């Protein structure tokens, strides 16, 4: 899978790595049971600090997307392990709050907002469908 990070972006690098791997899982480029590069290998290939990659893997592990084996290293989890649960819905709400607050404040209508959400959702659905066809 291709992983691209932007060093000039405001988004922290560990978040970019986490998002990149998430997209890889969604598009099927990373399959359950597949192992990711070791922390050292990934940090070396990206030319960034070990802690940054450690943090990204830590977040992914906490969110249930990967498992860290003693031997195999970081491995992609089966989808059952990260299906949305009550905890996730609570977190989703919390994360949407500031985004919606800002949109509301700037006068974005609810229709416009849900339209945008729909478009983005459709984009990722397409990615996932492409994965099913292959």
């Amino acid at each position, binding site marked *: 899978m291709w992983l691209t990070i932007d060093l000039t972006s405001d988004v922290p690098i560990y978040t970019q790595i986490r998002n990149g791997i998430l997209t890889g899982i969604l598009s099927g480029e990373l399959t359950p049971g597949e192992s990711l590069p070791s922390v050292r290998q990934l940090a070396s290939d990206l030319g*960034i600090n070990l802690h940054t990659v450690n943090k990204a893997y830590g977040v992914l592990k906490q969110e249930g997307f990967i498992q860290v084996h003693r031997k195999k290293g970081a491995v992609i989890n089966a989808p059952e392990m990260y299906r949305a649960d009550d905890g996730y819905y609570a977190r989703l709400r919390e994360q949407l709050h500031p985004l919606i607050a800002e949109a509301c404040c700037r006068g974005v209508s609810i229709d416009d907002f849900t339209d945008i959400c729909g478009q983005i959702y459709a984009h990722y659905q397409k990615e996932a469908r492409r994965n099913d066809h292959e």
Partner: protein
Amino acid sequence: MNNVITLISMLMSFLAVTGAFALFPYVSRKTTIFGVSVPEGVYDDPRVARIRKAYIMGVCIAGLLFATGVVLLWYLTGADAAAQGIWLSVLVFVNLFVNGAVYLRAYRGMKRLKAEEDWNKDAPQLVTIDTGFRKKKTMISPLYFIAYLVVIAATAAVSFLRYDALPSMIPVTFDNAGNAVGFMEKSYRLLLNMPGVQLIITMIMLFVYYSISKSRQQVDPANRDVSLTQNVIFRRRWSAFTVFCGLGMVSVFGIIQLSILGILSSSVTVILSLLLPAAIIIYVIVLAVSTGQSGSRVKVDKGDYPPAKAAAVREDDSNWKFGAWYYNPDDPSLFVEKRVGIGWTVNWARPMAWVIILGILALVAGSLIFSFSTGR
């Protein structure tokens, strides 16, 4: 006759140094010119072309001057082979120094140009990698190293089998015409010298092989599919070069042992010890020109891949001292591709880099002491 061979080998070493320095702007990645990272397309800028031309003129003029110096010295020192050897070393060293100064001028020129133009001002700095890179077959098979061990074992076995049949004094050094000039009393230790040298060569080649396999993947984010394919080819070809050159050296040393044992004529040794370096030099040149740094000169069919997107390479000039020495404490990589020329270098911010350099120095010093202690 002897003298002429000395002169030719002296001139050849200057030709090699000058050639290597003159060639490198053409085989380096086009996005790092004289150690300065620039966007794609800058390579053809007329100001850059002018810097390149001045650099090559400088290197060639220096090479010509020093070659003239060599001929003069050879003429003046006459038959004194020891003096010639010392003077040649001095001249090669000074020539390297002068070439380094010519390079530094070009590096400064590029830096100035980059500061003026501010090429990477608005472009995002992207780093792209393939997470499955280490699962690809990026190296030639390590099983070739078994062939090394077979040659070494054969050399040692033949030496032992011949031991009783050998005269009490055996030839250990030969002149350029293949006549034995140095003899030593036979002993098992003396005969094991050669397998020892072969083992050291094997260890060095294994280390180089290992460092290529561990080195950082180098993908151009603007052109990722093509550059990834090129990078894999680059690694495969240089790992093959490492394996085959080492095998060639180990085999030639085995053949030299055969002539010490009196099994082969010493003229074979002379021919082979001239042919091997020549073959390696030709191999290097062909590989460098056909592959380029990172595989940048390998033609990859672009039709299969999506078109390149505009992006800047990572701006890390400040981690490359003089464009050539990599020092980056934030990068856990130990082996990285060079910016100047072809091949790999180490990250000097890693303590392991210093351990490796000291280890290599110790190995060289150790083998020198070993060979002097046995009188060769």
